[in-house]
């Protein structure tokens, strides 16, 4: 059993979740700025 694959999977999953959340924050911020200016 190659348990290192599970370690990499857990670390990658963590950063995918944080990255996805950060991307939604940036998108929300940009949309709001566009709406306020428009």
């Amino acid at each position, binding site marked *: 059993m190659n*348990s290192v694959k*599970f*370690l990499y*999977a*857990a670390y990658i999953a963590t950063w995918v*979740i*944080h990255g996805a959340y*950060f991307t939604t924050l940036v998108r929300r*911020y940009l949309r709001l700025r566009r709406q*306020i200016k428009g």
Partner: protein
Amino acid sequence: MKRVFPILVALTAGLLAYAFYEAMWVAPTERTMGDVQRIFYYHVPSAWTAFILFFVNLVASVAYLIRRNPKADALAAVSAEVGVVFCTVVLVTGPIWARPVWGIWWTWDIRLTTTLVLWLIYVSYLVLRRFSDSAQTPKLAAVLAIFGALDVPLVYFSIWFFRTQHPQPVIGGGGSIDPRMLHVLLINWLAFSCLAFVLCWARYHVEQLNRQYEESLALESLMADSVSTSHRRQGGANPDRAKKAAS
């Protein structure tokens, strides 16, 4: 503020990179589980950070119920959302760790089940805030947050009071840990706490911007309503009156 934020982001990124290096290459390899045990350095700090964020949510919700301060309401919303993100990390990394160690992805064990319930409570809190337009929404959300926070000690102490498959706590629970592992664990916790702070800061800024935008929209529609009402009172919007006036 605008100058401080990029510096904080850079410092947090540096700390996270250092914590990753410590977790992967500096922490000693655990004897029975091997390298997969290093998931511990992401799983446990994420859980602690989520608990802290849910505690902040509880304090802000109580403060809102007492003082009706919109800033406390905004802080409650922000801490719950970022807390759900960290709780999601816990619920994803846990089964990935369990599969090679226990041989199963999931079991309806008390610790795992209460954590899933905690996640569901705070997701329902966010859904309530997102889709309810009532003026009572912040008050209802604050009450729900108090009920949700009751699950946090249940999650934490469940492994003390019930027989469970989940390991005992490494700190304050009678378990022992190698000092080098503890050092790496605390560095990772510090790094994830800084990340949580940065995310909360950014999310709070977005929340304030959103509230300003909604207030300006409400003000515009109120002004449009008052203009059309005064126009109607003068007979401008009534076609019959306009015809009579013309004849």
